[in-house]
């Protein structure tokens, strides 16, 4: 049992942190970037590709680096720390994860190779309007004629869907055949992009007889695999939230030490320092759960990963809301402004939760299983 990073992981953290600091050290740079299409910095995306970060999760034979979950978690934490709008979770972890899990060798070599090289952006279209974290598709239907597949329906929100070159789409198979996954060229769909509360980008995507290629062998019900990739994305999203929360606590602490009211700094008031202490408690508990869930992935057991995703999802959602709300409150008015990172960070925490799974969702799933075990075991 070991909760510490090795030297290589530490070096990766410093390298990614260094690169992101050149881009987003001050929050204004982030504001400028999200103001214009595509909502992220393509040059920075290219530099992340050069560093091998975009190919981190994928096998070397597919153009990737073959790193483990801890390394990917480190990248997500660093992205969260500066609220980087680059669609790493959506494109690399989620859509790339689906391709890596389900694609044929040729599809993996092609799509993951180009994704790792920064040549294409992928996005996963797996949510229907009004849909809620389901691994069974209900908004998009697949049809087949001979060997030719087409899709009809709407997916929304598709995170990074507006800037994606290739969409990885979950769709209901004909004849109640379950849920398949398809690759669709973004040129073959109708897209309407928009910004979420944190100014990151998503899109509404309409399929109207759009040409689609099954990922891997056609016609299989892939719902269990889709669920697992969602769980993995949830855990990496929790890593990203952790980075945000660390920045929120630090910014709030700094602010309490520097801001003067009534002639003294705010940390003179015990009511405020106690609230900051409680934020720290939430942060450290969430940090422990994030590390644990990330390490659980390495065990490779699908049910263990599902359990870990629910547990970390619940903990991080609770912590994120507590820390995000308190960060704004303790900053006072400045926390409400778009020019200051704290308020946007709070929005980002919510966007991650509502996209990947919020607290009631995870709690409901855990509650359903509560009598299946005697004790929750931290160590196997």
């Amino acid at each position: 049992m070991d909760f510490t990073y090795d030297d290589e992981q530490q070096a990766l953290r410093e390298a990614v942190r260094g690169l992101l600091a050149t881009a987003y050290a001050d929050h204004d740079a982030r504001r400028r970037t999200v103001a214009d299409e595509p909502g992220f910095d393509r040059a920075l995306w290219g530099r992340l590709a050069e560093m091998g970060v975009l190919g981190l999760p994928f096998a070397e034979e597919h153009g990737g680096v073959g790193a483990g979950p801890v390394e990917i978690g480190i990248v997500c934490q660093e992205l969260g720390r500066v609220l980087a709008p680059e669609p790493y979770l959506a494109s690399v972890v989620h859509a790339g994860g689906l391709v890596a899990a389900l694609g044929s060798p040729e599809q993996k070599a092609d799509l993951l190779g180009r994704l790792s090289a920064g040549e294409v952006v992928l996005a996963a279209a797996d949510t229907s309007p009004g849909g809620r974290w389901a691994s069974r598709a209900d908004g998009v239907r697949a049809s087949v004629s001979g060997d030719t597949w087409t899709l009809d329906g709407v997916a929304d929100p598709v995170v990074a869907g507006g800037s994606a070159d290739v969409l990885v789409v979950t769709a209901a198979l004909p004849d109640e055949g379950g849920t398949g996954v398809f690759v669709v060229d973004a040129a073959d769909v109708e897209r309407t992009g928009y910004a979420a509360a944190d100014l990151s980008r998503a899109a509404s995507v309409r399929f109207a007889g759009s040409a689609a290629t099954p990922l891997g062998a056609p016609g299989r019900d892939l719902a269990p695999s889709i669920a697992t990739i969602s769980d993995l994305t949830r855990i990496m999203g929790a890593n990203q939230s952790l980075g945000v929360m660390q920045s929120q606590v630090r910014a709030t602490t700094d602010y309490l030490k520097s801001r003067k009211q009534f002639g003294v700094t705010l940390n003179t008031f015990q009511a405020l320092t106690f609230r900051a202490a409680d934020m720290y408690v939430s942060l450290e508990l969430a940090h422990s759960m994030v590390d644990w869930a990330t390490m659980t992935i390495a065990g490779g057991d699908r049910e263990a990963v599902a359990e870990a995703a629910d547990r970390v999802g619940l903990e991080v959602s609770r912590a994120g809301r507590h820390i995000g709300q308190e960060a704004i409150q303790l900053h006072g008015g400045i926390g409400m402004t778009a020019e200051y990172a704290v308020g946007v960070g709070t929005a980002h925490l919510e966007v991650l939760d509502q996209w990947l799974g919020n607290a009631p969702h995870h709690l409901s799933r855990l509650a359903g299983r509560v009598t299946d075990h005697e004790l929750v075991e931290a160590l196997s």
Partner: protein
Amino acid sequence: MQLELSPADAEFRARMREFFTTKVPQEIRDTVLDGRHLTRDQIVESQRVLNAEGLAVPHWPTEWGGQDWTDLQRHLWHEEMQRAGVPIPLAFNASMIGPVIAQFGTEEQKARFLPDTANLDIWWSQGFSEPDAGSDLASLRTTAVRDGDDWVVNGQKTWTTLGQHGDWIFTLVRTDPEVKKQAGISMLLIDMTTPGVEVRPIELIDGGHEVNEVWFTDVRVPGDLLVGEPGQGWTIAKFLLGNERVGVAPVGATKRALAGLKTVAAAQMEDPMVRARVAELENQLLALELTALRVVAHSAGGEPHPASSVLKLRGTELQQAVSELALDLAGPASLASRADEDSPQEGWARRSAPTYLNFRKASIYGGSNEIQRQIISRTILGL
């Protein structure tokens, strides 16, 4: 980063689990697991079983029975004890005065007290708090005045936990009223059978007799029972209280209590609201347990992880929250808390209200949770 225990640590844990579940009398473990009160004899018997195996004081120096374990091994030992319902070795002996005597005592004091302390042949009480010196311990007023070779002690201590069982009491006393208040404090070991020592029970809100007042009237204490130097008491107290914080989050016991509720209130586990409360608590306990492991993992170099102060704060909150759940699950049955043993209400339900009330202490003792927030905000966040 790696989740699994090393083979050696896994084997260590298995050895602990086997010993605790087979060698400590079942009746004692059932008493703990059912949440009933242990008798003095049960606590003594259990500690002697552990001590015979070298498991009562593993964190002491090896020459006095310590085991030279890693922090992780000590953590596993502690968790497995709680999981099996084995009473934790009496904290006053094992965690407080034992390490103090080993660190600050004379060779004569070590030889005289440490073996008996480890084996619970001496039952120690703690004489720190006073009516006007709780969290502000340095304000204590009990005095010790030199008279020849002896000290003469006068004053009053309070919140002396299990003092009714005590053979000896380690006390902080004011030996020099002229200097800065921290500098005038010394530590004395006092035989509780000495004339002038009087123990008076304090009745608590749960109806139990757990704490006491201890009064000292012209109590003569031989000079060789001073620990360390005169005026060194504050330093010793800080050392002792630092030890007290280790293992202060009763994760294993709280997990066990929550799991027990799933069994005794099985019918209510069909209620979605109840299931949600259990699931939420299980998750919070997991986060706390993992934090304890992170702290242990980082403590290897001797420096405690800064998150260690989270453990007491959150550990006691969760201990209290589980006692609240038990009370809510008991419902009307909880009114029978002082009914006779032949009550038709189940034991766990009858105990739920006293337990809930009793655990209100957890966020007060050992440095109140407000003190913990102060530590976090000052020493970790620099506020």
